[in-house]
């Protein structure tokens, strides 16, 4: 057992995970390893289109104990994960490592497949009921949580090889070209699936929209796709469009968003050519709206809008407030349509978006980002993975990546969620280290990380931005919540939280 640089105890070897490299700082782990892109024999004359998922499983050579991957562009409307696992169960394929880019409530049937032995291990976010179950320690091996950038890094470095990637495709042709831009299950960008398509040993595409002619434009080319299966439906459109794409109307959340926007405005980075990521969710969308007001007020025009793209970002592009959108995930119908029509709206892979070990991740172009948190502590360390009871309920997403890449990173969050304080002396687990966080914004004002003395001075000079110290905030939260009971924990490690470079920033133990 050793302590990493944040003082978190990390075992030298974690059963079911392997040797752990303790987190030692933002960019201290040097790139190493090399994943392989599998070469295939000549495919001339081959019919890639198979009749069923079972046929594809057989053709791909999937066996018990292998690793299968999925993307989450269909979000809570996804049918593909459940269909593939059901087929594996019927075929007696067991002990699989599930390697999704994210899971949602709709994937609750995984619980049955954990019980019946089809799924042995999960590498990826475990939300909702699956998270609660996994937190009790039912899986023999710990979940591995990686960021959107850490995941392609792990694949490309060979740390996390994929045996078979199953790619849901809203639009495909018989040669294996894929796109998310059309069809009844259209989802826009397929950015999270690009690396899987490139590096998996075998790639199976599933579509409910098989076109007879070659599709255009192409997101993932036929060069990576081994087999195709046409199924009645890959997703429910109602669940595909994210439920979190409306600006909040809650006055307190609007207040937080306004403060966050004002902090960006007060920073040295609010100038011509600013690039930013605000994401989806009520507060971030409101920040986007307030940023537009600020840009009008100051006659500033931005450069790049990044990340999960919403209609609000598209509006900024169309009206000339941004020059380009880099889209790893399209959150709503407006974003999808824009991706279809506007060459300045560019689909990017998760590798391009956030991989710390490539020659130029988009997150490194960010001037400012606004993120959420479950908890944040005196050292500004942030937890987004566990709930107040210690259960795993959220993935990392792009949290680590954008925080590390952006010049100014703001956590915008109400101080309390019900009785649960967001500001706390010590977070239950660390997802993102405090050194990447510049300010916390709550309804009580702005709490600037003292390490960023310049921002502190700039905020201090603004009469409309109340400054609150972290100690004051924690005291206030504590006064409102009363004493919180310690989370009871067992010995078993249920999750390993990797920093985006693959070092271990923290672990999560089972709930007591």
């Amino acid at each position: 057992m050793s302590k990493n640089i944040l003082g978190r105890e990390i075992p030298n070897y974690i059963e079911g995970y392997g040797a752990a490299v303790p987190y030692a700082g933002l960019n201290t782990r040097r790139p190493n390893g090399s994943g392989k892109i599998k070469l295939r024999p000549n495919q001339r004359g081959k019919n890639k289109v198979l009749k069923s998922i079972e046929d594809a499983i057989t053709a791909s050579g999937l066996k018990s104990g292998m690793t299968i991957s999925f993307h989450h562009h269909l979000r809570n409307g996804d049918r593909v994960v459940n269909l593939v696992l059901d087929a594996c169960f019927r075929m007696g394929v067991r002990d699989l490592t599930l390697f999704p880019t994210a899971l949602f409530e709709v994937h609750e049937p995984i619980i049955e497949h954990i019980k019946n032995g089809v799924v042995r291990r999960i590498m990826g976010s475990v939300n909702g009921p699956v998270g609660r179950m996994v937190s009790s320690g039912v899986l023999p091996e710990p979940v591995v949580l990686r960021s959107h950038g850490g995941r392609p890094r792990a694949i490309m470095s060979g740390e996390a090889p994929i045996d078979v990637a199953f790619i849901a495709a809203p639009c495909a042709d018989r040669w294996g070209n894929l796109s998310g831009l059309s069809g009844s299950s259209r989802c826009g960008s397929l950015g999270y699936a690009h690396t899987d398509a490139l590096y998996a040993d075998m790639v199976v595409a599933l579509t409910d929209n098989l076109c007879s002619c070659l599709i255009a434009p192409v997101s993932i080319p036929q060069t990576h796709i081994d087999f195709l299966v046409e199924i009645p439906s890959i997703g429910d459109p109602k669940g595909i469009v994210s439920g979190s794409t409306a600006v909040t109307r809650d006055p307190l959340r609007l207040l937080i968003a306004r403060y966050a926007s004002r902090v960006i405005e007060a920073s040295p980075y609010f100038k011509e050519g600013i690039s930013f990521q605000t994401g989806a969710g009520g507060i971030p969308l409101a920040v986007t709206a307030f940023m537009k007001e600020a840009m009008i007020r100051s006659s500033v025009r931005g450069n790049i809008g990044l990340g999960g793209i919403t209609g609000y970002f598209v509006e900024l592009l169309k009206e000339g407030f941004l020059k380009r959108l880099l889209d790893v995930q399209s959150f709503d119908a407006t974003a999808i349509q824009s991706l279809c029509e506007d060459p300045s709206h560019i689909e990017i892979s998760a590798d391009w978006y956030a991989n710390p070990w490539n020659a130029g991740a988009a997150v490194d172009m960010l001037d400012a980002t606004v993120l959420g948190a479950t908890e944040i502590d005196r050292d500004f360390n942030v937890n987004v993975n566990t709930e107040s009871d210690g259960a795993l309920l959220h993935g990392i997403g792009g949290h680590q990546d954008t925080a590390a890449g952006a010049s100014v990173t703001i956590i915008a969050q109400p101080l309390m969620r019900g009785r649960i304080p967001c500001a706390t002396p010590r977070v239950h687990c660390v997802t993102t280290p405090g050194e990447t966080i510049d300010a916390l914004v709550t309804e009580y004002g702005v709490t600037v990380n003292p390490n960023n003395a310049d921002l502190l001075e700039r905020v201090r000079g603004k009469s409309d931005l109340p400054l609150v110290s972290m100690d004051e905030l924690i005291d206030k939260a504590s006064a409102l919540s009363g004493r919180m009971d310690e989370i009871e924990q067992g010995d078993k490690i249920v999750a390993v939280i990797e920093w985006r470079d693959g070092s271990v920033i923290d672990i999560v133990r089972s709930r007591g």
Partner: protein
Amino acid sequence: MRRTMMYLPGNNPNMLLKGYLFRPDGLIFDLEDAVSANQKDAARILVRNVLSSQSFGDCEVSVRINALDTEFWRDDLCAVGAAAAINRRVNGIRMPKAESKESVIALDDTLSELEDKNSLPQGHFKIFCLLESANAVWKAYDIATASRRVTGLTPGGEDLAADLRTTRSREESELDWIRKMILVAGRAAGVDVLDAAYPLIHDLEGLKKQTEGIRQLGFDGKSVLHPSQIQVIHDVFTPSATDIEKSLRIVRAAAEATKNGQGAVAVDGRLVDVPVIKRAMYLLTLAGLDAEEAVL
């Protein structure tokens, strides 16, 4: 400053606890219209406890009690008195349906008793009168001068329109003369004149237009129903950079003249007299500046 006085429903704990975070100039804990008759007791207890236990930043804190023709107002005052005994910042009573000089005197007397009972200094409580009928508007000056506690006058909205046998239009042209009458009465009595709230909470353009109108008339501020209205009103009441600069020149010139024993002084070629100086100092206050410090 009383640019914005925000109503907080007495039965909404979230708003009671967090309303001050929106940084209005004042808060009005509402026990009257926002609370149904069967919720009066619960709201009164909640308001008392919140007022006793919480702080509210720099906000002026007042309570709208129920009207003096109801069975609730004495209990409301008891609760406010108990809270003020613990939290001295609680010192405003918003009096609905202030109809006459006599009704204000009756409230004044009860407040004096309340102050004694709660060991508060005489005169601790101020009264803000809501004029909600033609009769009340007609007697505005008498009402404003009925007690030294009276600090502000505010026209009613819906009730007043009904009493005038009209309805409240979007432009509120039916209240034009009412506002002017109350403004004159309030200024003559030496109290603040605060406008009624703009009821269309999503129409921020309409709010801006109305606020510009009442500011030009001479009003000191406006009631607020929703946090989104605060910034709009503050923006209207915030002087321009040019006005601030001119006001600074006036107060500095006046201070210099006083120091040199001069009776009058000219700024930008115009003679500056006492009202102009007072106006300049008020404008600096609106800009968040301390006139005395500005002179230094």
